C-alpha cells in the first residue's frame, strides 16, 4: 500500500476527529490504571462498553494486570493467557500460536477476535490472529482482557467464542521507559521496549518497538515439511500521540510490523509465511454530563505471502493484500445513577486482492448498529442485554480467473445477522455473586473462504483447485453459562458451567478432497472451503486464588467435552476439523509468585490431557497424530540490582514435556536470560 494512498485516509481521520472540537463539554478517556488504583481492583470496558469492576462483570472474563505481566515467565500474550481456565493455547510451531476459548481447537482459529485498544488486529483475509504481528509490546500493556463466550453484540462478527482486548498504558506527567533485552537457547534474541514522553502538559507521545528472533523447533521426519524451514523473525514499531485538547481526548497513531515464520495452514500443510502489516488510527473521546462519546476509525493493511521459499531457490509466493477500513461511533448514556445505555454504529470495508482468487478483488462492506442496556432494578440484582445488527454486502471486481467456478452474480450478495448477549447478576450476601448469561454470535466466513481459487499440485491427470464459495454463510455460535464466585476467607473461589454450540463450522478441504467436477472448458476438480457440520462443547471451570504473605497463588481446572458431527476422522480425512479430537478434556494450572526484597520468583505449572492433532505425513496423507498428556513448568527468577534495573532468567517447559505445545511438533525447552530497565 503506497504512502500516497494512505495520506488521504489519515487526513480523513484527522478531519473526523476535529469536527467535534468546538463543543464545550469536558473530556475524560478511560484511565484504567487510575480507576484500578481508586477502587482497588481492575476495571474493564470489554464486556459491555461501560467501565465495570472485574468482580462484577456480566460475563466470564479474565483481566491480566501490568504487575501480573511483569512477573510472569511468559514472553507473549498467549503465554500469559494459557494460565487461565477455559483457555487452550496451541503452539503449533515456534512462531505460530492459536488461542481457543472453551474448545474448538484448530489452526487459524477464526472465532476469537483480538483487539489492541479497541482496534482489530485479527486478520480478516484468512480469519486468524498472528500473535507475532500484534504491534504491541508487553512493556506497554496496562492490562489484557479476555471475555469468554460470544461478544458479538459489542464487537461484531468474529468475537464468536470470545474477545481479547489488549489495553496499553497512557502517559503521565513524567517521562517513563521500559525496555527488555534477552538472549536464550534455540536462537532466542529479543529487544523490546516502550517510551512514554510528555511533549507538553496536555500532549504525550508513546513509542514502542521490538525485534525478536528464534529458531524453529525440530520437526519430526515423519511430517511433511517444505524444503526450507524459516526461523521466526519479527520486527515491530508503533507511535501514538495523545492529547487533551479543547475538552477532548485525542489519540492518533500508527505502526508497522513484519513477521516470518512457518505455520500450519487450515489445511494442516506446513508453509513458510511472511506477513507485513501497517496500521493508522485516530480516536476521540469526550466525557459529558450525561455520559461519554467516542468517535474514531482505523485502517489496517496486510501483505501476506504464503509459501515463501518452498524450495531453497525460492519460488514466487502466493500473495494476498488485505485492507480494512473501520469507522466507529458510540455513546454511553447514564440513564440514572445506576442504569446505563450504550448505543453504537460502525461501518467497515474489507478488501482482499490476489491472483489466487475468483477475481482480482473480493470485498465486503458491513454496516452495523448496536445497543446495550445495563439495569439495576434492585440493589442486589443487575440485568444486562445487548444486541447488534450487522448487514453485509459482498462484492467482487476486476478480472475473473478462468475457468470460473462460480457465477459472478453469486458475489453480489447481502445478508443480515443479529447477535445478542444477556446476563443476570445476583449478589448473594455481602460478597457472593451468581451470574447467568448467554448469547449468540457469528464467525464471518473469511475473504479466503469466499473467494480463494488455488491450484494444488497432485499426481491427478485432472487439475484440482481449492476454492472458496460466495454462498458460504456465517457460523452461528450459541453460548450459555452459569457462574458463581465467592470469597472464602482470603481465598476467592469461582465456578462456572458452560455450553457452546457452533453451527455450520467452516473447514478447509482435507485429504478426502470431496470435489465438484467441472467439464468446461476442460475437465477440472474443485475442492471447496465449506460448512461441514456442527459441534457442541460443554464443561466446567473451577478457579481459586489468594495471597499468603508475599506468596500470590492462582489455581484452576477445566473440564471440556466436545461432541462433533463434522466430516469424521476416518481415512481419508475429508476436513481438518475435529474439536472432539483436538481439544484437551482436562487442563489444570497452578501459578505461584513469591516476592522478597529485591528478588522475585514465579512458576507456572500446566497439565493438559492427551489429544490428537492433524498433520500431513510425508506420504502425503492427512492424519491425526497423538499428542501426549503433559505437565509443563515455566519459571522466572528476577533480582533488582537497583529500583530501575532487573536481571532475570526465565524458562518455558522446563520439564521438557513433549506434549506441552499441544502440537504434532513436540515442544522443546526454551530458556533465556536478560535485563529489564524501568525508568
Amino acid at each position, binding site marked *: 500500500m503506497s504512502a500516497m494512498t494512505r495520506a488521504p485516509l489519515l487526513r480523513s481521520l484527522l478531519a473526523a476527529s476535529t469536527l467535534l472540537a468546538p463543543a464545550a463539554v*469536558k473530556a475524560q478517556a478511560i484511565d484504567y490504571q487510575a480507576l484500578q488504583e481508586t477502587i*482497588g481492583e481492575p476495571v474493564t470496558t470489554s464486556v459491555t462498553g461501560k467501565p465495570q469492576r472485574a468482580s462484577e462483570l456480566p460475563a466470564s472474563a479474565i483481566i491480566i494486570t501490568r504487575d501480573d505481566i511483569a512477573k510472569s515467565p511468559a514472553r507473549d500474550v498467549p503465554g500469559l493467557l494459557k494460565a487461565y481456565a477455559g483457555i487452550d493455547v496451541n503452539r503449533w510451531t515456534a512462531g505460530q500460536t492459536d488461542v481457543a476459548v472453551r474448545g474448538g481447537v484448530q489452526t487459524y482459529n477464526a472465532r476469537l477476535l483480538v483487539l489492541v485498544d479497541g482496534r482489530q488486529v485479527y486478520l480478516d483475509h484468512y480469519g486468524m490472529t498472528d500473535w507475532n504481528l500484534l504491534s504491541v509490546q508487553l512493556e506497554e500493556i496496562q492490562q489484557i482482557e479476555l471475555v469468554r463466550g460470544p461478544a458479538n453484540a459489542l464487537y461484531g462478527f468474529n468475537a464468536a467464542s470470545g474477545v481479547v482486548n489488549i489495553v496499553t498504558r497512557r502517559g503521565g506527567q513524567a517521562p517513563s521507559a521500559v525496555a527488555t533485552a534477552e538472549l536464550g537457547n534455540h536462537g532466542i534474541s529479543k529487544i523490546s521496549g516502550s517510551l512514554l514522553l510528555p511533549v507538553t502538559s496536555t500532549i504525550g507521545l508513546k513509542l514502542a518497538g521490538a525485534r525478536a528472533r528464534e529458531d524453529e523447533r525440530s520437526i519430526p521426519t515423519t511430517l511433511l515439511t517444505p524444503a526450507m524451514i524459516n526461523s521466526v523473525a519479527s520486527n515491530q514499531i508503533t507511535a501514538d500521540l495523545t492529547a487533551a485538547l479543547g475538552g477532548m481526548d485525542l489519540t492518533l497513531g500508527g505502526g508497522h510490523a513484519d513477521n516470518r515464520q512457518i505455520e500450519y495452514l487450515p489445511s494442516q500443510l506446513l508453509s513458510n509465511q511472511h506477513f507485513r502489516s501497517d496500521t493508522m488510527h485516530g480516536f476521540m473521546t469526550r466525557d459529558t454530563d450525561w455520559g461519554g462519546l467516542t468517535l474514531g476509525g482505523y485502517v489496517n493493511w496486510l501483505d501476506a505471502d504464503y509459501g515463501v521459499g518452498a524450495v531453497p531457490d525460492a519460488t514466487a509466493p502466493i500473495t494476498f493484500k488485505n485492507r480494512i477500513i473501520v469507522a466507529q461511533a458510540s455513546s454511553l448514556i*447514564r440513564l440514572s445513577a445506576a442504569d*446505563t445505555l450504550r448505543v453504537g454504529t460502525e461501518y467497515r470495508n474489507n478488501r482482499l486482492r490476489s491472483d489466487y482468487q475468483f477475481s482480482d478483488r473480493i470485498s465486503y462492506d458491513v454496516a452495523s448498529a448496536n445497543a446495550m442496556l445495563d439495569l439495576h432494578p434492585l440493589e442486589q440484582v443487575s440485568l444486562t442485554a445487548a444486541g447488534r445488527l450487522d448487514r453485509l454486502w459482498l462484492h467482487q471486481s476486476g478480472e475473473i480467473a478462468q475457468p470460473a467456478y462460480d457465477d459472478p452474480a453469486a458475489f453480489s450478495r447481502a445478508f443480515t445477522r443479529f447477535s445478542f448477549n444477556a446476563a443476570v447478576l445476583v449478589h448473594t450476601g455481602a*460478597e457472593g455473586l451468581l451470574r447467568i448469561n448467554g448469547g449468540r454470535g457469528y464467525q464471518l466466513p473469511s475473504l479466503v473462504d469466499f473467494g480463494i481459487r488455488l491450484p494444488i499440485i497432485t499426481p491427478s491427470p485432472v487439475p484440482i483447485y481449492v476454492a472458496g464459495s460466495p454462498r458460504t454463510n456465517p457460523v452461528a455460535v450459541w453460548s450459555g453459562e452459569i457462574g458463581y464466585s465467592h470469597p472464602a476467607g482470603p481465598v476467592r473461589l469461582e465456578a462456572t458451567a458452560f455450553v457452546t454450540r457452533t453451527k455450520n463450522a467452516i473447514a478447509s478441504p482435507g485429504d478426502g478432497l470431496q470435489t465438484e467436477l467441472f467439464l468446461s472448458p476442460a475437465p477440472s476438480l474443485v475442492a471447496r472451503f465449506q460448512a461441514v457440520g456442527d459441534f457442541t462443547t460443554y464443561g466446567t471451570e473451577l478457579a481459586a486464588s489468594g495471597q499468603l504473605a508475599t506468596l500470590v497463588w492462582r489455581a484452576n481446572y477445566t473440564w471440556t467435552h466436545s461432541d462433533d458431527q463434522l466430516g469424521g476422522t476416518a481415512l481419508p480425512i475429508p476436513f481438518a476439523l475435529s474439536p472432539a479430537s483436538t481439544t484437551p478434556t482436562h487442563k489444570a494450572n497452578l501459578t505461584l509468585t513469591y516476592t522478597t526484597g529485591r528478588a522475585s520468583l514465579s512458576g507456572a505449572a500446566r497439565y493438559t490431557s492427551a489429544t490428537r492433532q492433524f498433520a500431513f505425513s510425508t506420504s502425503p496423507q492427512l492424519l491425526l497424530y497423538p499428542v501426549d498428556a503433559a505437565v509443563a513448568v515455566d519459571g522466572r527468577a528476577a533480582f533488582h540490582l537497583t529500583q530501575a534495573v532487573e536481571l532475570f532468567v526465565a524458562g518455558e517447559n522446563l520439564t521438557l514435556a513433549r506434549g506441552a505445545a499441544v502440537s504434532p511438533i513436540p515442544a522443546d525447552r526454551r530458556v533465556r536470560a536478560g535485563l529489564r530497565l524501568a525508568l
Partner: protein
Amino acid sequence: MALSSAAPLSAELNVPIAARVVSFLQPPPSGTMAAAILFEPGNAASEAEANAIERAVGNGLVAGRSAIRARRVPIGAMGALSGYHVAFVTAGLRPEQGDIAAAAAKSSVLTISSDAACVQAARCVVGISTVPKTQITVSKAAARASNIRFGSAFLMLVKEI
C-alpha cells in the same frame, strides 16, 4: 490479579484513594489543591484521624495532574472554607456536618469522609469505605450543592445516591 490500593487498618479515611477521587473531578484539576483537614480539638477520634490524614498527605500528595497540600483546620475556625478546594471531614463531627455542608456549598469545596452517614445525609460529597472492598459513595445532592462534577467513567464505578 495483584491489587495496589492500600487499605487502612481502621475506619480511617484512605487518603491515597481520596486523592485518586480528586483526580476524577471535572474539569480535571491541575496545580496545587489546598485541602482542609477538619477536626474537633479534644475529640480523640477526630484528632487521631486528622493526624493520620496529615501523615498520609505529608508534603503533598499527587492527584492526577495536581498535588494536594493539606493543613489541619479546627472545626471552630472553619469559616466559609474559602481558599480550599477539598475538605477531609474526620470522624466525630456529626453535629457539625450541617455547618460543614453549608460552608462547602458556599465555597464549592469537595468534602470527603470515611463516615458513611455524612454522605447518606447529603452533607458530604464523597464517602470512602474499604472493608470488605473499596466502596465509594457520591451524594448527588451534596455534589450539586457544591457545584462538584465528576467524570462519567468514575461515576459508573461508584455508588451514587
